[in-house]
């Protein structure tokens, strides 16, 4: 017999997180909830005299499957939020009624089952091994084919081989310069700025903000302080010292500036 306490703990530990599949918005939250369900199921297996499966459950599901899910979630963007408004007419009702119907029917069927559980307890790993490599050995063999198929399939769909020859560091750098990138390192954020902070763009010698000096992450989060914002703050300030920029750089609003090398040729 199984302890009722265990059952109820498992029931709550699985059903409640599982409901996040229907109601939670963030995929990551759902994935973590499912991890919880998997752990709950592992507990159930142990309670049902299947310790081997309990361990396998933890290893395979929480350890591998769900981690793979999380991995892919991160790949496609952890921050994905799902709009839960329904787009297909009536889909929500159909879903609840059919799923509810399935649950109702299965429970009504199972509720009337009266099989007395056997007292015999089986389930230690050695016994499982005997069955696994005895009666089910052919299935084991075929699973090999299954796993090869899965691996080959995943490789085909995701692996991109090197299509261009590997480039050396100097080639990379040469290409960058050719493409018009700064030959030297990008300025650090906060350089020449009023604020020595990561969210403030650097300024070039002319005082213009260099927007790409700030991390893209901050940019995506809209946590970057805008260069223009500083410019206006600079213009509006009454402190004369402020107009005197350090290192003698020309002021931001000055129209006159010395042309850069190369610009002259274009004129």
């Amino acid at each position, binding site marked *: 017999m199984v302890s009722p306490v265990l059952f109820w703990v498992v029931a709550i530990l699985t059903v409640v997180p599982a409901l996040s599949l229907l109601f939670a918005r963030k995929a990551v939250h759902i994935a973590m909830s499912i991890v919880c369900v998997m752990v709950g199921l592992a507990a159930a297996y142990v309670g049902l005299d299947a310790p081997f499966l309990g361990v396998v459950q933890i290893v395979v599901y929480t350890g591998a499957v769900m981690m793979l899910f999380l991995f892919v979630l991160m790949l496609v963007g952890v921050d994905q939020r799902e709009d839960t408004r329904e787009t297909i007419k009536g889909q929500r009702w159909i879903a609840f009624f059919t799923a509810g119907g*399935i649950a109702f029917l299965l429970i009504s069927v199972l509720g009337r089952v009266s099989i007395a559980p056997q007292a015999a307890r089986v389930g230690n790993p050695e016994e499982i091994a005997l069955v696994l490599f005895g009666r089910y050995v052919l299935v084991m063999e075929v699973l090999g084919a299954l796993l090869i198929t899965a691996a080959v399939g995943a490789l085909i769909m995701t692996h991109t081989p090197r299509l261009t020859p590997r480039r050396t560091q100097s080639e990379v750098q040469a290409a960058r310069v050719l493409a018009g990138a700064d030959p030297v390192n990008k300025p650090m954020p906060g350089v020449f700025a009023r604020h020595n902070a990561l969210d403030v763009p650097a300024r070039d010698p002319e005082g213009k903000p260099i927007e790409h000096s700030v991390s893209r992450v901050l940019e995506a989060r809209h946590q970057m302080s805008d260069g223009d914002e500083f410019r206006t703050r600079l213009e509006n300030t009454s402190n004369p010292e402020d107009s005197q920029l350090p290192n003698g750089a020309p002021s931001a609003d000055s129209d006159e500036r010395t042309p850069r090398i190369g610009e002259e040729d274009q004129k």
Partner: protein
Amino acid sequence: MLTLTWLLIAVPLASAAVLLLAGRRADAWGHWLGVAASGTAFVVGFVAFLQMLGLESEERATSVHLFSWIPGGELNLDAGLLVDPLSMTFVLLITFVGTLIHVYSVAYMEHDADRRRFFAYLNLFVAAMLLLVLADSYLLLFVGWEGVGLASYLLIGFWNFKREYATAANKAFFVNRIGDLGLIFAMGLMFSYFGALDFDSVLSQAPEATTAQLTAIGLMLLLAACGKSAQFPLQSWLGDAMAGPTPVSALIHAATMVTAGVYLIVRSAPIFNGAPNAQVVVAAVGAFTLILGALIGMAKDDIKKALAASTMSQIGYMMLAAGLGPIGYAFAIFHLVTHGFFKAGMFLGAGSVMHAMNDQVDMRRFGALKGAMVVTWVTFGLGWLAILGVPPFSGFFSKDKIIEAAFVGEGWQPWVFGGAALIGAGLTAFYMSRLFFMTFHGKARWTDEVHPHESPALMTVPMMILAVGSAFLGLFLAMGDRFTHWLEPVTGHAEHHEPVLPVPVLIALTLILVAAGGLLAWLRYGRAEVPETAPSASLATLAARNDFFQDSVNRAVVQRPGQHLTRTLVYVDATVVDGAVNKQARGWAGLGEASRRLQNGQVRSYAATMLVGLVIVVAVIVVGGL
């Protein structure tokens, strides 16, 4: 030789295969190969026929085993041929008339770049039709049945690379499929009742089955026959079939295709003998179609469409005869044979006329062609006399027998069926004479650019041979009831019954009606001027038209009610029957469009479909189990 009858099918089939596969290389000689194949089939058939004549009448049925076709536990079916007087009659008709049409086509299709392909299809058609009549089981018959259908589409569509013809062919296919359904259902019923599909087992077990079973099978066979033989309500495809080259029409109407339905019914005689109700329905369908066809024939100005309507009507006679039971079977086939000759002759004549008139088909543009095309005029005229039933030409002997047989019986039946057959004879006389006079007599109403001329010998010789048949075949076969005795092993011996009216009276009545019909037509279309455009339908214009005294009588007595009836029936034909087909097609398509919404491209909806199905099934199981 009887065991070599498989050559009948194999030779044209092989020829068709050669012609199709050889491609352009065979363009030079392909048509002659086609003629030779058909001719060889005729020779084989004729030799077998002579051999069969040498046998006692009980021994004339021979089974030719070909190969084991579908082996199986319950149903073990071999592919085999049944050569007996009935199938031999058809073989001779198909190969003889078919060969003549082949010869004719050599000249008729001379300028067509695809003549070789045309002959391949003709050969295919002949082979399929021979398979149909020689098969020894319903299933093998069905193979030929579908083959005929397929070949006819290839031929009907031969000239038409236009979309509207394609849709017409599609519709024709659909109508024919309804007929095919009948045959399939009939086979299903036979299989479940008798556990067999070969003629031998089915027909020998038929007397032991219940009337209800036989009636069901009979009605399904009738549906099949209606589809192929263009009987009401599945007649509408016949008009579409006119789109093909004229030799095809001749082949379809005279020797192949439309005769298949009559063959099916006569072949299944033991089934119908046990199902009187089904027989009455067959006769009724025949009687109705013969009148309907005649009325439609009156309304057509297109020479080929008028001839097509006449085919419908004449096949109606055959169906009527077949529905009368043992007394009618032999006459049905007799009429089929004579009809095969005169109708083929007339179609070839029509083709000759069209050849001369730059493919013009509107009879209002013909007239006075007898001078320009003497041979065509004479041969067509013999066919015309034959279809009218003027003694001593062929049609008289065959049609008159059917009219007599229709008057046999008790209660209302002889009066209705006999009456229909009698009236039909009068109507036939009217519209066929109309056709004849409008084409060959009266004033020339040709358009300017045509210069009628007689067709080449390759075309006229077949017409002459057929004309000889139209003239004398009936007399030859009727003498001493030769034909009836010949078919007796298959159709059974029919007791002689007296019609409800004395035979001489019937003959006299028939001839009077025929004469009246012919005379009316002469007055309207031979002597009088025929307007070059069809008269419009409104009563006002009718009243305004030239008003001879005879015409008024004519119009009041025959024409006006006739016209209304004709119009109504043609309207019914065009809207209700065609409409039903179209509507049905639309209905299916509408259902498709509606179900299409289920497949909305959303995988979640797909999953929902699955789950809903699952829930329903489980719910039924669980609720049923509680």
